């Protein structure tokens, strides 16, 4: 890891003015020789240290956001929803009584991410902004398209953990499992710049497909700080769940994960449905056909099975990841039934 300057401001606007670039921009090069003059943000620092230890990011300076007051608070929002400070840790989220009661999918995903040691330090903001886990992207020996190179090595290579949807030029899957749940819950992000101006953007719209910009996963601009995650109040009759399928029972990123949120009339038909597939595409993938099939129906095992089948519409597996299709179909069916049955 390279040596760097360190500052730890106590004020968001002040911090925003010090960073000169984003982590994504600082990792792009034409020749594979990285810029060493960028100043970047750090929250929990888990992904940042990982990238720096691998020599994939060589910043001149780090701006620590962890000392900024009030960014680590979960608070009731004016609209009855919840305002989650970007520095709230995954451990905090998993243990929070309000999140556990009203936003179970998020508590599930936070409590099952990484290891207990990482959850204690990793923030939800950093989790949402982490770089892809694709092994070609994480390898210094592979100057892939996302880092300014010419090709995506996954298409002709080892692509068993890669995307089955929307892999146009880059076959990465989005690494932030929390986003699967947060998109299902209708989350928005609050971003603050050096002038103190806040913009609010839907999390689903924040993520960018490779065909839009292959060198960054989201619409974060230099100097902008992700300050909060905003969850709208769920309808009293809605429920959510997140299911993660790993390759083993010990901690790892999922090979497939699914979040389902359903608003169901008491004893009656489904009024609104969100079915989101994680680790399926470069962004959290909304299974629109499955959602359309659920709305207006009284959900039983047959409806759940049909919706699960529809969730894979448009899938285009690569040479080594067609095994993901039946896993996703099973997870979607289980998640729908678990929400309906309250289990």
């Amino acid at each position, binding site marked *: *890891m*390279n*040596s*760097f*300057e*360190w*500052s*730890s*401001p106590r*004020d968001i*606007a*002040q*911090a925003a*003015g*010090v960073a000169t670039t984003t982590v994504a921009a600082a990792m792009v090069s034409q020749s594979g020789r990285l810029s060493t003059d960028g100043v970047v943000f750090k929250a929990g*620092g*888990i992904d940042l*240290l*990982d990238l720096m*230890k691998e020599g994939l990011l060589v910043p001149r*300076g*780090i*701006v*620590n956001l*962890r*000392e900024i007051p009030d960014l680590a608070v979960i608070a009731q929002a004016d609209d009855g929803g919840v305002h989650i400070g970007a520095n709230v840790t995954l*451990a905090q989220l998993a243990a929070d009584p309000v999140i556990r009661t009203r936003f179970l999918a998020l508590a599930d995903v936070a409590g099952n991410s*990484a*290891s*207990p*040691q*990482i959850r*204690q*330090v990793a923030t939800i903001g950093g989790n949402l902004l982490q770089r892809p886990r694709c092994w070609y992207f994480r390898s210094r020996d592979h100057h892939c398209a996302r880092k300014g190179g010419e090709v995506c090595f996954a298409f002709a290579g080892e692509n068993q953990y890669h995307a089955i949807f929307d892999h146009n030029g880059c076959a990465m899957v989005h690494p932030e499992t929390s986003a699967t749940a947060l998109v299902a819950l209708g989350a928005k992000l609050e971003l603050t710049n*050096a002038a103190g101006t806040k913009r609010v953007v839907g999390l689903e719209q924040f993520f960018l497909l490779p065909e839009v910009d292959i060198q960054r996963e989201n619409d974060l601009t230099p100097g902008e700080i992700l300050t909060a995650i905003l969850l709208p109040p769920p309808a009293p009759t809605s429920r959510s769940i997140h299911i993660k399928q790993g390759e083993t029972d*010990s*901690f790892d990123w999922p090979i497939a994960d699914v979040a389902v949120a359903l608003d169901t009339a008491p004893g009656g038909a489904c009024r609104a449905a969100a079915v989101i597939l994680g680790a399926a595409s470069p962004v959290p993938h909304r299974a629109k056909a499955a959602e359309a099939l659920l709305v207006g129906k009284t959900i039983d095992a047959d409806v759940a099975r049909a919706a699960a089948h529809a969730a894979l519409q448009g899938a285009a597996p690569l040479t080594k990841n067609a095994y993901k299709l039946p896993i996703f179909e099973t997870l979607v069916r289980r998640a729908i039934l678990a929400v309906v049955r309250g289990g």
Partner: protein
Amino acid sequence: MLDTTLPDFLASDAQAAERDAVGPGPVPLTLDVNNVSHSLFIEPKTTLAEALRDSLDLTGTKVGCDRGACSACTVWLDGKPIAACMMLAIDVGSRKITTIEGLAHGDELHPVQSAFIAHDAVQCGFCTPGLVMSCAALLESNPTPTIDDIKAATSGHLCRCGTHPHVHDAMLDASRIRKT
């Protein structure tokens, strides 16, 4: 650092923060480890694991993967287990660090340490300090853990010798010893 030549109107907040930057060379900082305050002079890039091992000679904390993936470097930060390899020493601030060296009271072992010995929960021993720290932290928050609680608390730990079943037995025993 004096900046007397810079007119006030140019001294924006950003420049003020830039002047507050330290490093990249060694900087003085204080670490509270096992209830002892230590003054160090280290680079901002120094991880907590490196500071403990190289500056303070507390080599009980092991570094396996150096990526937060094996948990051999587990220490407590304000009583909670963290990976010391993925935390910068400069980021610890005033928070209290507890390492494996701080767990026993003199010659009196922590119940988890005694139980690890009794159940032979050690082979090569490299992952053991980290596992003991996770197990001891679990007992602090949950004095009567179930086997599932123990598996969850130790889920981050890799042990290539395969001692996990003995660790589980040791922990169940340690919680019984603590109760009596």
